[in-house]
């Protein structure tokens, strides 16, 4: 029976969904390796301890709280040193991180400090004998690798949305942990956090994504995509590489081989031809809808439902119909 560590990502004093998923994944691993404890570490400005209940609710038995005014923003160097120390002392079987911007920054630092193996970007975790096996999309999602890690601690990072939130509450005992290095002495400093539009959902968390391609013809016409996203109420806006290269939308909205990889419940592709580069970022979406005037467009090969037609005619009609359906539902 071995304990499992989880890093619970937070921003602005709140644990992110990714953090809850990391704890949930750690709970899964703890159950599968004989029912050890889950120790979740959360770092932030004083007051972050109030998040402990949320971590306990998804399976944390112990919540390790690192509070320091200089941890109000993510502080890679201080957090990595503190997490590595804690994992070293804790004798954990595994340590779970999120495969988010923050987690993908943190986990390799910790792995290198501990000289411990890291299996990144898991879409599923399993225990096989003495090894932890991680399913990890490779070759832009065209191949799924099963990565095997036998050593302890095994570090893994889990993809946003891949792990269902835990329902087994842990004890949630809170334990204060002091930062290993002075967070004020870091070499790299976050000097500003530019929050995106808070009324929009992040692509990685949105259950619905409406994405636009070159078929929209101009930046202004993206208003059609935005209105459809608003009609769904819980949708994020995405774009193809052609669109972000044109400067119609920011790179942060790009979905594809070199952009975000998303897997929402519903993906609506508007004026997108379906280049391989784009499909790499969205092909695992649960339901795909495509609207394109070219009936030969490759997007129709992956779409569950397609409408062949002019986006300028179809999308406004769909927006109205979605509004109406939601008003009735």
């Amino acid at each position: 029976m071995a304990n499992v560590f989880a890093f619970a990502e937070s921003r602005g004093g709140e644990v992110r969904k990714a953090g809850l998923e990391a704890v949930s994944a750690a709970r899964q691993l703890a159950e599968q390796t004989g029912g050890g404890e889950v120790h979740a570490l959360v770092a932030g400005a004083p007051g972050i301890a109030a998040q402990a209940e949320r971590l306990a609710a998804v399976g944390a038995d112990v919540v390790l709280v690192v509070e320091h005014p200089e941890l109000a923003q993510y502080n890679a160097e201080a957090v990595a040193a503190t997490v590595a120390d804690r994992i070293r002392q804790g004798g954990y079987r595994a340590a779970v991180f999120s495969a988010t911007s923050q987690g993908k920054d943190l986990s390799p630092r910790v792995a290198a400090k501990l000289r411990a193996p890291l299996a990144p970007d898991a879409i599923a975790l399993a225990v096989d004998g003495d090894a932890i096996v991680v399913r990890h999309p490779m070759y832009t999602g065209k191949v799924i690798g099963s990565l095997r890690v036998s050593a302890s601690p095994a570090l893994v990072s889990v993809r946003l949305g891949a792990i269902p939130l835990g329902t087994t509450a842990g004890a949630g005992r809170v334990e204060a942990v002091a930062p290993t290095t002075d967070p004020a002495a870091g070499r790299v400093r976050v000097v500003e956090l530019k929050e995106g539009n808070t009324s929009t959902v992040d692509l990685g968390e949105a259950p619905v994504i409406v994405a636009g391609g070159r078929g929209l013809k101009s930046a202004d016409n993206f208003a059609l995509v935005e209105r459809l996203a608003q009609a769904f109420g819980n949708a994020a806006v995405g774009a193809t590489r052609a669109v972000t290269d044109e400067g119609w939308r920011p790179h942060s909205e790009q979905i594809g081989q070199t952009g975000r990889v998303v897997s929402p419940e519903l993906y609506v592709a508007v004026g997108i031809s379906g280049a391989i580069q784009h499909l790499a970022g969205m092909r695992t979406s649960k339901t795909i809808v495509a609207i394109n005037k070219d009936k030969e467009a490759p997007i129709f090969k992956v779409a569950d439902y397609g409408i062949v037609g002019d986006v300028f005619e179809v999308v406004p009609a769909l927006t109205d119909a979605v509004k109406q359906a939601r008003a009735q539902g």
Partner: protein
Amino acid sequence: MKIAVCIKRVPVMEVKFAIGKDGASVEETGLKYDVNDFDLWAIEAALQLAEKNPGSQTTVVTVGPDAAAEQLRKALSMGVDQGVLLKADKLPADGFAIAEALAAELKGGGYDVIFFGKKAIDSGAETVGIMVAELLDLPCVPAVFKLDIQGGKGTAMRALEGAAEVLAFPLPAVITVDEGLVKERLPSLKGIMAAKKKPLETRPAQLGAAGVTIARMELPAERAAGRIVGTGKDAVPELVRLLQTEAKAL
């Protein structure tokens, strides 16, 4: 300035991959190779920094088989001064093992900036650059889409989910490059000719022990064939009905 850029030879992804006989690799027959997308932008960022600082020296490094010399030559033809091939016939599945080989080469090189692409599109791991920074005990700024380096220090921006961070850092530093920072230049004919005479050294990669292995590879399930619901806006009611009753997505 002394600037290094680390790149990877990766298959061109516009193919249908097949799983190799061992069940834990992709079949290499018929694959074409190129410089990893993000690494092209890392090369470009290195060249632009060198051009802003006359007298700079740029070095491109890779870990890979003999054939990876082709990707190093591409970097040289874009304008990098010299190349180093750390020879390894097969790359381990553990990013740390690769990071150790790169760190051994870069250590003591006196580099002001070491660039990496944010991630390799074949392994999809996004770990090696950051691990090299740790091994060299250098400040690390991952996944930047804006960068300004002057007077021995820099500022950069990187995307978070739904936000962006502005970071300040001193040199020397390791920087990994995201899409949007720069667009890579095409090698000119003159560049291609010049690259043939540029120094390219080969030595064995001092790979670390691999703690991660690939037990299996498989192709993801194909999506079931979809259907065209209809043409034009008249098809919208039927689409909405299907989304409600069949896909339960609305």
